[in-house]
């Protein structure tokens, strides 16, 4: 029994094969193709040739992809979205698409309506649905929209209105019509959740081509009877059907996979991960094997959203970062020679002093021609290293949740520039497979569910509230394809509501289980 993991990045498509003990058997890297399908096919082909295994024993195939992120950033292949906000008379002071870049509104057709509906913070009715209003709207929108986003006020507390409207749309437009419900996507914060839901709705065509491409590529290589999954940005997987409903959850799965892959390679569950590339370094935190989630609003393609994203900090420091001297001050980055490192760095005969040159001078790495950097004063090289160390130290410290030292797992091609000691770090763990950590992360992912609601502890005690939220999260996980008896609670977050007298608390729980 084997598993295939594929990570389609901006530059490379990585593919790896794991055996039933999750041991890495083979890995390949090939350039990402424009249509992604060809790139996946090529990687698969090389992988299967190289590994030389019985194809019929492949049981799972996992794909991590940046297709959805790219579609939003490049404004390409997006569907026309109609937005139905349920909240009237509330919320009319800020309309859907407010503060969106205008080119994006044009791409999505800009259709919206604020209809009757919505709940109060404690689940009481704000206003009742009006079926005629919705039916009329759907008549007006016929042939103008390709996908619909439904966003109800406080739907994260009670979402039956959103589901009802979804049913009405299906009655009029058919079962197959793509519909996104905000309660299943974002958390409290109407504008941000609405934006995320609109983006999700806009991605329905991209996800269709991506998943189809993946399945066809597998079939072209003679792989038929496998469970196919897509990676989400929290380090868990979703089935193809689920992915088609929630394409936005694939955004930023790349850094997540690399964090998870790092954890797997190092066999550490709670650690910080440093992924050093050519231009930037990403730092993320693994908590019980999963990346910590960001707690602030995140912008995707200049649009403010609040769906869950991994908490990642990026610093302008990589293997190609340029080293400069200003008076008696040394600066490192944030600019980099990037992919031109093999021409421009001193060790490769170039004329730009980079962090890699410093690493070679200090004997930390053996790349290029070390005699070309022998002239660099050792004290100076050490001072540069001190600066690198201080940049990393600061970034790492921002990601810490306590002042204790942390362990750090190092992956990525630029890892050679990292000094052996960093303040605030107890140990640094490296792995020889760090370069394909992404694809490894994709292939070992599990399945999750989460739930969020405002509970009033004075009316519904904390224990009961927790239990309720957990049950609802478990349902989500089962829906996504998890085995119910393997599901465990991995995260509980409680935020008390300000200026509210009754101990109301926003409670968020997350559960994770094994694959069916």
């Amino acid at each position: 029994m084997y598993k295939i993991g594929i990570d389609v990045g901006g530059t490379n498509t990585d593919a790896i094969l794991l055996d039933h003990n999750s041991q890495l058997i083979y890995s390949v890297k090939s350039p990402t193709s424009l249509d992604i399908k060809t790139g996946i096919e090529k990687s698969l082909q090389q992988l299967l040739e190289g590994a030389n295994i019985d194809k019929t024993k492949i049981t799972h195939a996992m794909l991590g992809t940046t297709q959805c992120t790219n579609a939003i950033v490049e404004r390409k292949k997006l569907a026309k979205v109609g937005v139905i906000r349920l909240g009237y008379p509330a919320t009319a002071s800020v309309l859907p698409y407010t503060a969106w870049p205008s080119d994006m509104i044009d791409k999505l057709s800009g259709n919206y309506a604020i209809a009757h509906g919505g709940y109060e913070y404690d689940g009481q009715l704000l206003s009742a649905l009006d079926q005629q209003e919705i039916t009329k709207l759907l008549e007006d929108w016929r042939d103008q929209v390709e996908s619909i986003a439904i966003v109800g006020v406080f739907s994260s507390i009670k979402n039956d209105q959103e589901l009802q409207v979804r049913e009405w749309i299906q009655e009029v437009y058919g079962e197959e019509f793509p519909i996104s419900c905000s309660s299943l996507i974002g958390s409290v914060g109407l504008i941000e959740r609405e934006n995320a839901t609109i983006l999700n709705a806009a991605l329905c065509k991209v996800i269709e081509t991506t998943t189809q491409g993946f399945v066809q590529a597998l079939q072209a290589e003679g792989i038929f009877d496998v469970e196919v999954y897509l990676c989400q940005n929290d380090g868990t997987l979703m089935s193809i059907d689920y992915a088609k409903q929630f394409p936005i959850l694939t955004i930023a799965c790349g850094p997540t996979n690399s964090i998870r892959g790092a954890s797997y390679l190092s066999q550490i569950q709670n650690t910080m991960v440093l992924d050093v590339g050519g231009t930037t370094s990403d730092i993320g935190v693994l908590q019980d094997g999963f990346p910590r989630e960001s707690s602030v609003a995140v912008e995707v393609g200049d649009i403010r959203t609040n769906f869950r994203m991994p908490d990642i900090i990026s610093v302008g420091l990589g293997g190609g970062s340029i080293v400069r001297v200003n008076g008696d001050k040394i600066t490192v980055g944030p600019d980099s020679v990037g992919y031109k490192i093999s021409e421009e760095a001193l060790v490769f005969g170039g004329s730009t002093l980079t962090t890699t040159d410093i690493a070679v001078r200090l004997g930390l790495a053996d790349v290029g021609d070390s005699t070309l950097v022998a002239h660099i004063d050792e004290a100076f090289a050490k001072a540069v290293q001190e600066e690198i160390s201080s940049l990393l130290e600061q970034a790492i410290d921002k990601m810490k949740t306590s002042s204790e030292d942390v362990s750090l797992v190092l992956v990525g091609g630029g890892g050679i520039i990292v000094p052996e000691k960093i303040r605030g770090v107890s140990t640094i763990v490296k792995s020889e497979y760090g370069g394909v950590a992404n694809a490894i992360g994709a292939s070992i992912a599990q399945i999750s569910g989460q739930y969020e609601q405002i509970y009033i502890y004075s009316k519904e005690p904390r224990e009961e509230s927790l239990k309720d939220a957990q049950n609802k999260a478990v349902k989500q996980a089962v829906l996504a394809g998890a085995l119910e008896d393997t599901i465990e609670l991995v995260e509980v977050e409680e935020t008390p509501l300000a200026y509210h007298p009754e101990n109301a608390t926003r409670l968020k729980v997350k559960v994770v289980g094994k694959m069916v």
Partner: protein
Amino acid sequence: MRYLDQAAIEHIAIGAAFLGTGGGGDPYIGKLMALSAIEKNGPVKLYSVDEIADDDFFIPAAMMGAPSVLVEKFPRGDEFVKVFQKLAQYLGREKIAGTYPMEAGGVNSMIPIVVAAQLGLPLIDCDGMGRAFPELQMVTFHLDGISATPMAITDEKGNIGIFETIDNKWTERIARTATVEMGASSLVSLYPTTGAQIKQSGVHHIVTLSEKIGEIIASKDQEVNDKLQSLLKLADGYELFQGKIVDVIRETKGGFNLGKMNLEGIESYKNDQMKVHFQNENLLAEKNEQVIAMTPDLICLVDYETLLPVTTESLKYGKRVRVIGLPAHEKWRTAKGIETAGPKYFGYEYEYTPIEELVKKEVAEHV
């Protein structure tokens, strides 16, 4: 008189959140409301206090309740049209000459701009706090004996209540209960005032001050240290600390979030510690176990690098901040001001001492 355009609103939102001393909510949704309102109705006129007539009548507009509810269920936008009519009728006034903010804060600096745009009324350059506070009687008009009522409270559904209470503390109690029933967030118009009363009891130029603060913070041409110096000069402030949040402890008691955070010094404050006590707003700061600033003086937290205001909702370990202290408006420093919003009112057993003296004392001891 001048007009407030989009850029002005962006700056006011930042500056008011700064003066909100951690409370008053995230300015984002308020800002979107204000920007939408001027896009629809055109820019808003801002009058300085000297430009208004003594006999004219003004009604402030504010949001009451939990900002975390507001981010989900925000107003319809025209709630105040009816409220202003009703209140004017009730008061026997034919004309409302303008509106103004109750407090500086992310949300409540923006609500009156929405109202002014909706009703075509001018905004007056003053408020009733010069900062943010959690209760309705913590207003400079209250300190001068002006009644908060008749007040109107409304929600997006169209419910309107008009209260007359026996004192301003009762206003707070009753309005708070009504707010919870209205869905934990309501819109209020209270402290109806004449031009003369505004001149006598308001905190003047606060909109302009917020705007100037926001302008400095948002400026891209200046180095952070230069920006900070301009900011301190503009607001007569003191940089009290530069540090990293190493601990945030919260507990909920009697409807307010009691919290404290510990900061570890960085840069020139390397070996120092600071503790900031907050409820919804930052109320007390101790540097190396000694009080350095206390309410009603302002304790503002800003991001170390961007100087953007940090609200209490977004405090977390590792965040690098600067702590800035500003003297409160002189009305807060009177006996009644201290009784209403001094350290003891919030349960801290300290005699109020102005920030200037505390800072002077600290510097003297240090030398």
